[in-house]
């Protein structure tokens, strides 16, 4: 059923009784050409683009719970492509382009809002790094602007430019960056993939991956075995566990990232702003809640909850950046389990096991990658080779020393 304002009106007149499920709830078949493990944004997008771009529709997305409640359903929704390394910013830019036409493509309003993303800096060194990044982006045709202190003040008057412990020197702005409605992204991809014949199978946990002669043949699930010619992993923080089912240890650790939302208030913060002198970033949801977060709790965990020290740091950094937020109240706090790699960049690649692919290692930045990751992952699965855009995002790069370490933090996932 196509969504439109008119449909909304006619349905309203008939008591909204005619709406049908956004996606079917099918029984798993015995075999599929491709099985995607993980019904987050990345898995669903992979399935959608397999069907749409490559005509592969005998596809199942297996999700252990309800779709979209992993990191897709708990992230702070920032989309941008302002990365330093060309391997990264060219990929993310493609993803951003997909975002720009996503709603019309999916016929689902994911509320992609290009409200601008501003990264503040507070020192000469950080300014130079921002300039290097912004210039790198501009050379590759991606929008970026360097704001000085006065421009920052004008852009967002709530920012304390002068009086903080680390006064603001300026910021790197990407106007085309912004936010998108996280839940709608999962639902929109699910609905569109379903419409193209993909089976979305919820409450179906993969418990084993069958490998014969170095090649995948299928999966074991809580709803029985399912055969598959090719398997794509898109399970975020659970990648290590799934990869181990196929006999692989991957350079990845699982860490929790917290997020917070304040009580809802009238429009206050119209952009996405990140602090440069502590871990803090913020935007305001359409519902009015200020959505904010910071850094990792910093130790391996699979639990979707965080602890007070990070709360204290993030909230203090928030007040340092925007002192007027002080009297607002925090409403809710949660966490998501991040698939942290050892260089902070993702892996979209074939694996040493034939027929097994993964899109993983998204760290705390994979929401913005959702369409691009699905698109490249689908390409890699369909053609058994990477697209130019994900050619560098291999598993082997760690062994080869061809790291994509944006920030130079080294092989310490908890610092990435």
């Amino acid at each position, binding site marked *: 059923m196509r969504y439109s304002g008119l449909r909304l009106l006619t349905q309203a007149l008939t008591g909204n009784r005619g709406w049908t499920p956004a996606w079917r709830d099918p029984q798993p078949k015995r075999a599929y050409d491709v099985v995607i493990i993980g019904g987050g944004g990345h898995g669903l997008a992979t399935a959608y683009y397999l069907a749409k771009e490559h005509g592969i529709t005998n596809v199942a997305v297996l999700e252990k*719970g309800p779709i979209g409640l992993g990191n897709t359903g708990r992230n702070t929704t920032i989309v941008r492509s302002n990365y330093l390394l060309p391997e990264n910013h060219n990929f993310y830019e493609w993803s951003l382009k997909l975002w720009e036409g996503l709603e019309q493509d999916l016929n689902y309003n994911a509320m992609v809002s290009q409200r601008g993303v501003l990264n503040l800096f507070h020192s000469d060194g950080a300014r130079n790094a921002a300039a290097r990044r912004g210039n790198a982006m501009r050379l590759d045709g991606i929008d970026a602007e360097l704001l000085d202190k006065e421009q920052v003040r004008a852009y967002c008057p709530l920012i304390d430019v002068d009086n903080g*412990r680390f006064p603001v020197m300026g910021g790197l702005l990407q106007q085309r960056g912004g936010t998108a409605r996280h839940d709608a992204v999962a639902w929109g991809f699910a609905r569109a993939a379903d419409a193209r014949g993909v089976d979305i199978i919820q409450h179906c946990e993969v418990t084993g991956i069958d490998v014969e002669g170095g090649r995948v043949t299928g999966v074991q699930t809580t709803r029985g075995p399912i055969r598959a010619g090719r398997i794509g992993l898109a399970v975020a923080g659970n990648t290590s566990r799934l990869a181990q089912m196929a006999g692989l240890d991957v350079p990845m650790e699982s860490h929790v990232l917290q997020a917070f939302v304040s009580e809802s208030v009238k429009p206050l913060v119209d952009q996405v702003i990140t602090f440069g002198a502590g871990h803090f970033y913020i935007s305001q949801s359409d519902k009015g809640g200020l959505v904010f977060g910071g850094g990792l709790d910093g130790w391996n965990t699979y639990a979707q909850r965080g602890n007070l020290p990070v709360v204290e740091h993030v909230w203090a950094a928030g007040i340092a950046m925007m002192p007027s937020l002080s009297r607002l109240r925090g409403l809710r706090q*949660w966490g998501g389990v991040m698939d942290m790699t050892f260089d902070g960049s993702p892996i979209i690649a074939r694996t040493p096991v034939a027929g097994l692919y993964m899109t993983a290692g998204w760290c705390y930045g994979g929401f913005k990658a959702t369409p691009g990751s699905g698109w490249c992952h689908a390409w890699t699965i369909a053609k058994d080779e990477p697209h130019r855009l994900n050619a560098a995002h291999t598993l082997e790069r760690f062994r080869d020393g061809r790291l994509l370490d944006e920030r130079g933090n080294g092989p310490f996932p908890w610092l990435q």
Partner: protein
Amino acid sequence: MTQRFRTASGGRIDRNRVLRFRFDGRAYEGHPGDTLASALLANGVRLVGRSFKLHRPRGIFSAGTEEPNALAELRSGARREPNTRMTMAELYDGLEAASQNRFPSLRFDLLSLGALAAPVLSAGFYYKTFMWPASFWEKVYEPLIRRAAGLGRAAREPDPDQYETMHAHCDVLVVGAGPAGLAAARVAGAGGARVILCEQDFELGGGLLMEPEHAAWRDETVSALQSMAEVTILPRTTVFGYYDHNVLGAVERVADHVAAPLPNTPRQRYWTIRAKTVVLATGAHERLIAFPGNDRPGVMLAGAAQAYATRFGVKAGARALLFANNDAAYDSLFALQDAGVAIAGAVDPRPESAGASAARARGISVWADSEIAGTSGGTALHGAHVRRRGGAGTDTAVVADLLCVSGGINPAVHLASQSRTPLRWNEALATYVPGVPVLAQHSAGAAAGVTGIAEAAADGAKAGAAALGAAAPAIPLPTGTTADARVLPIWEVKARGKAFVDIQDDVTTDDIRLAHREGYKHIEHAKRYTTHTMGTDQGKTGGIVGAAVLAEARGERVQDVGLPTFRPFATPVTWGAIAGAHVGKHFAPTRRTALHEWHVRNGAEFMDAGQWLRPAYYPIPTDTDAWESVLREARAVRRAVGICDVSTLGKIDVQGRDAATFLDRLYTNTFSTLAVGRARYGLMLREDGIVFDDGTTSRLAEDRFFVTTTTVNAAAVMAHMEFHLQTAWPDLDVQLASVTDQWAAMSIAGPKTRDTIARIVDGIDLSNGAFPFMAVGDGTVQGRPVRVFRISFSGEMAYEIATPSGYAEQVWNAVLAAGREFGITPYGVEALGLLRIEKGHVAGSELNGQTTAADLGLARMLKKRGDFIGRTLAQRAGLTDTGRPTLVGLRAARRDEKLRAGAHLVEPGSTTSHGWITSVTRAVEIEGWIGLAMLRGGAQRIGTRMHATFPLKGEVVEVEIVSPYFVDPENQRVRA
């Protein structure tokens, strides 16, 4: 007449004192002991807010934290605080509040016209529309949605109040001071435990506060607790979150019950409480029933109406009707009757009940086996339609301005659930109660599903004893009988009209069913699709009702559907409180060198280096801009002599039999061959082969070294050393001490350096022969001990003088005096940077965690023999690739053109980046701007020209690629 709805007597308010306050500009009066909500009700104010989406009129619904409707902007200006629950706001004289989410006024809210479009504004409608044209989302639709949404308005100025943190430890933390919590605290306290008792209300007592007959027990228990030295009582303190290892967070509202905090007093205090055992006596929240019009001002939870009557001395209406599915709620109605409220009757879905009989005995008419199918009225309730259950027969219209609702109770399991205690379904109460806890924790009283004062108190005493873990002393307990809290689980009355399950966010039963129909069948999907339980009250009164409606749609039992995850904050808490004192300049600590005050007195401009403050440069009146200062300082060094505070460099004293072996393994070069009294420049890699840090290390004795690190990496290098010493090579005899703060250090550089310091340094022959480049020695300056290092970062003849930091200023002044005749000039970090760039020394911008030794032209420093950290992985193909960018120098081809760090190097006309500029400066040794860059094929490009492009500013500068060593590549000067 003011306070028309005040009862003649009773309640815990102080009728002898009058407090004046304003709501939406109008003046009212109340009494100490009132909340804003009770005071408004006393004055007959019913309409207090507008709902989130449909802007429907809203009244006061509860008497506690669960309040969905009665949210106000409290105070004004920089102290404005949106979304304050009127039911928690303690009245004070001069309080000012305003209603929110309405335009232009509460009574005439234009946005309420949108309610006409309500059928279109069904759950998730925005996902289905607003997609065309694409560009309209940011420009038109989204701003409209945003303006209509949101609740109160935040302040836009910095908060003038102070906040604080507090760390606490206890044997037993009791959360909630109702009968259960008071009893638990008393038992544990009497048993000798260290107890903390937190109560979010300003009065201790919980349910006791609305039961005058138990006032005596309450008072006696409270004073017993107050007399116990090891019991800390924290009223106005909300425990907001339950974290791992029995650590809980709480916020104490120290000064919210006054207009502004007293001087020297924080507004709120954030407590981190580490408890051996926790007793959760958080009580219960009454729940609503979904029936059409259940959101109209005048509809109120039964227990709340009782609390207003008996605790606050307020009649929440003139004529009350009860709609309840349990006997306990009748007690509330009786309390209203006793308080002088006219009673319209009781509507009970049960065919017969003890409550109904008791009501009839009090002359109250009861519609049994009945339900409420709708309400009438505008911005206030006029009446309700009563009908037989299921809709048989005709409706009866009952006139009432207060409709008390009770659908049963939900134990406040928020904190228990956050601590991973599983929830268990309780059939009698048709709700969840805590199961067996995972951590050392007990739930007691209504929080555990044990209702009634006597029962709750007894249960609390039991929990207190269990928490004590020892023989528990007996305490007096209240007695009495309690009405039955068991319910007939009805959740919804299906009739025409909107029946709300989330009153704040306008989520109706139909919305839940729509979500289900569209496939959002899981409770978490339904929550997100409809926004049910996502408001400031987090569905405390209606959450389970929505779940029940969903369960019915799914054809399942409520307990099989579950509830959305309970998360902190059990009740929202102030952002500023958690930030505590870490605001403004105190966001992070400040680190100052021993010479800081000298720098201040001498007009230095400071810059941040991590937490350090360092002088950037020292402007003098004749300098017209910063560059002039910097160039002046740098020239002084190149031509005569300058002095720079380099105390911030990390310094580590390394001792032990194996100190040299240890350093050999840490650094890429060798230290075991270094002679005593000599220093060597060292390079350290990370284990992944990337450069980590550099610095000079001096050998003070066979078994003692003095290591320096870069300023920013000081702590990381120390930890790196300790890690390897303790985990990889625990057999080595090495001791490490940070002496960064023990030693102040100043670099004296320039051709006149020796002439300067030779005058004041005693005990060292500073002649070139006796004290050559890289020599180290101990001496004195005017009786102060100093350690002199002949090392140079600037490329000039230079000595570093370190002295115990208490003598820093004395030694510094001695050097200044000695160098005065040469024009000795203090120089800051900017000039230091200029000098090192001219010399081609790498620093933070090049040692950025992405470069290898070879990239930086330091490959020769990797020793060929022996292990060192990073040796193996540095040889990976990707790190030895000859295509990697390497260090080069740059000059602007046109000498007057400015270079910028962060520019990229391209071939003219191309946008392909071959590298980037890491550091730039105006030079003093040569003309114009110079820089360092990382450039692919750098060595081969030396002598060529490229474009340095800075698209962010639209600048392109032609540059010459040159050797990075602009000054004295042969190192003549440093050895002079």
